[in-house]
């Protein structure tokens, strides 16, 4: 009597585990615990990792937009709460700062045959993360509106301003342009992108001293202010979702938006005229610069330091399985994948063009997050005309220096 249930359970477990074995994931009695952001492309990767882990092991998945706030305390625990943290080039920085993730070089050698060298994120020579998708902000435009106004697609921000002006003057739209300018992280990102377009550094090389309080900073702010004049007056509350909604309902003709939103902007819930006429293009240049005024982002996975080597190996195998090129059979349109055999669709052109034209990656500097946060909080006053560009930059600089001192980056 006692043997029977045990046998049945074992048989069941074997039967369920079999497909996983068949997919080439051979580990047992270990644990894979994933912490990741919450959007469709990551769901696809995590889902495949889960298939690979199978029933003979523990599997925990936490997909949440709060992942950035959880990751440091969760990985600081010993053993760590999660074995895998899915990150981007902004959110990996605190994990590196705190020494919470492990080098992956050995595992790459052992199990990473399917990975391309460009997928390996190397920090000072050690592989710390495996990237699998790319993202970047770029231009979306409505070809019907541009045609109606007799305009060519803009390739510089100066042309974007002229186009917005023309559309407004023609009476086609009152607020033809929309950007993610919500106070906070989003607004900070717009500044970072535009400032990048002028090709200046954010910090004095090798130090945490800011170098944005200069003529380029002023030019960046003036350009942002000119742009938001063509935006809906509520622009300081616009994030990616709002831009998406405005676009889908046909209320804007030009948008600066994340490439990962392309599918939603071009298809999704958009009204028909938007679906038929939305075109993506690389980010415009600014001030005669050669590179698009944007930053490139990657998403990838890292492994926690405070876990056993067995768990690390199993987690690595599962995640590499998650990003096998086979993923593309069903999920190709969900992201701009950095995987072999990925052929970009019409929604991916913007990010690819940004990358090809030498757009810099978002800086993985330990203190970049501080500057980004301060920019996002301080620039709202300027964009609403309550202070000068010089004053806004001086405020950003002073506030950043204070925070950097408290964090030990500056003395």
């Amino acid at each position: 009597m006692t043997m029977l249930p045990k046998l049945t359970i074992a048989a069941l477990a074997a039967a369920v585990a079999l497909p996983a074995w068949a997919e080439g994931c051979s580990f047992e009695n270990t644990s894979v615990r994933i912490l990741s952001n919450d959007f469709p492309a990551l769901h696809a990767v995590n889902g495949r990792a889960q298939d690979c882990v199978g029933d003979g092991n523990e599997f925990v998945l936490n997909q949440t937009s709060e992942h950035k706030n959880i990751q440091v305390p969760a990985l600081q625990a010993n053993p760590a709460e999660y074995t895998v943290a899915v990150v981007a080039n902004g959110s990996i920085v605190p994990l590196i700062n705190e020494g919470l993730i492990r080098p992956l070089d050995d595992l790459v050698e052992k199990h990473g045959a399917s990975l391309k060298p460009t997928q390996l994120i190397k920090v000072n020579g050690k592989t710390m993360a495996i990237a699998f998708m790319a993202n970047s902000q770029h231009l979306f435009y409505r070809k019907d509106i541009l045609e109606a106004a007799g305009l060519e697609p803009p390739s510089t921000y100066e042309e974007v301003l002229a186009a917005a002006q023309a559309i407004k003057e023609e009476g086609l739209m009152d607020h033809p342009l929309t950007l993610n300018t919500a106070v906070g992280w989003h607004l900070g990102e717009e500044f970072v992108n535009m400032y990048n377009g002028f090709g200046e550094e954010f910090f004095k090389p090798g130090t945490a001293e800011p170098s944005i309080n200069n003529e380029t900073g002023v030019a960046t702010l003036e350009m942002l202010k000119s742009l938001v004049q063509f935006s809906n007056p509520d622009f300081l509350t616009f994030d990616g979702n709002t831009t998406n909604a405005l676009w889908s309902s046909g209320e804007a003709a030009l948008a600066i938006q994340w490439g990962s939103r392309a599918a939603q902007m071009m298809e999704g819930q958009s009204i028909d005229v938007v679906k038929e006429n939305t075109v993506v293009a690389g980010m415009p240049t600014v001030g005669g610069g050669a590179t698009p005024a944007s930053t490139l982002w990657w998403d990838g996975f890292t492994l926690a330091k405070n876990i056993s080597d067995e768990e690390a190996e199993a987690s690595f195998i599962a995640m590499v399985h998650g990003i096998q090129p086979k993923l593309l059979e069903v999920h190709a349109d969900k992201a701009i994948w950095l995987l072999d055999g990925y052929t970009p669709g019409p929604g991916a052109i913007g990010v690819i063009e940004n990358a090809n034209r030498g757009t810099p990656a978002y800086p993985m500097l330990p203190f970049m997050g501080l500057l980004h946060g301060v920019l996002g909080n301080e620039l709202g006053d300027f964009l609403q005309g309550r202070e000068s560009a010089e004053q806004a930059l001086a405020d950003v600089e002073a506030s950043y220096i204070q925070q950097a001192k408290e964090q030990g980056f500056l003395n």
Partner: protein
Amino acid sequence: MILPSLAAMILFIALPIVSVFVQSLFVEHEQVLVVGENCGPFGCTPTTSVDFEATEKLREEKPLGRYAGFSTYLGRNHLATSDVAAAWGSSEGIGDFISSLMNLRFYKALIFTLTFTAMVTPFVVLLGLGTAVLVNALPQIVKGPTIFVTLLPMIVTPLIGSLVLFWMIDARGILGATLAELAGDPDLSLKASLPLTWVMLIFYGIWHSFPFAFVILYAGLQTMPQDTLEASMIDGANRWQRLRYVVVPHLMPLVVFISLVQLMDNFRVFEPIVGFQAQANATSLSYIIYDDLRGGEIQLFGSAAATSMLTILGVAVLVTPVVVRTWRDFKQRRRI
């Protein structure tokens, strides 16, 4: 009896505050920076990173961080003493001085917090009193439903309530569009203008809190001695005089209680700012604590701790007059 409650107070109130205070006196260790190279899908770039091992060694030696005294309090992001002194010296008038203060994070939050508290608290008491008196005068049959409807604003979670209003006051929402229509200005935006955002938040604060005052004062009205009221009627007091000289004095202890709770509540205003995404125009002390802890990738514990201590200090200063008054009343009554 005293010992357990004292122990509980020390454990749950005093110790956490002491811990936050100690935290606020320290800043992070110096981060040892090394210059190296990062490589990824978009090529290699020279970069600066933290030498974790060297930094960790410093941390192990002194886990609390570097002692900084009150430098976090006095720095640019809190009391900003040197900036305030400079602004005082260079400004041409009080208006000019205030606008330079509005440029400093802490004072911007403090000025809004104080304005919010000063506007919302009295209106909540007055509106609560008015509603309680009116509802009390209603015929019995409609009292129940009226009380229920009046309590609704308080039943709605602040974050949800403000989110609902956030959509309604959108430039394309029902309230926002109507106001723009009435004002004849298609670009009018409640969310973009600083004064309108403040008015909206204060309005929301009153709307959300007045049922609290109402329900307490209504209960107080039920304890109103009828013979006193009748006596005042015989003396020829009209409705207003009865309210002013009989009802209000009877309810005064409750009014003090409501003011006390509301002062503390309003001083830590937070949810409406998040719900209305009003941080471009209005931030509160609680909001900047939240922003330090959850705003970016790096958590600023010391800065958040300093703001917390200053908030506690602010609440103490605000409620002291009310508490002193209550204490005096208490002593007086004992003497009688």
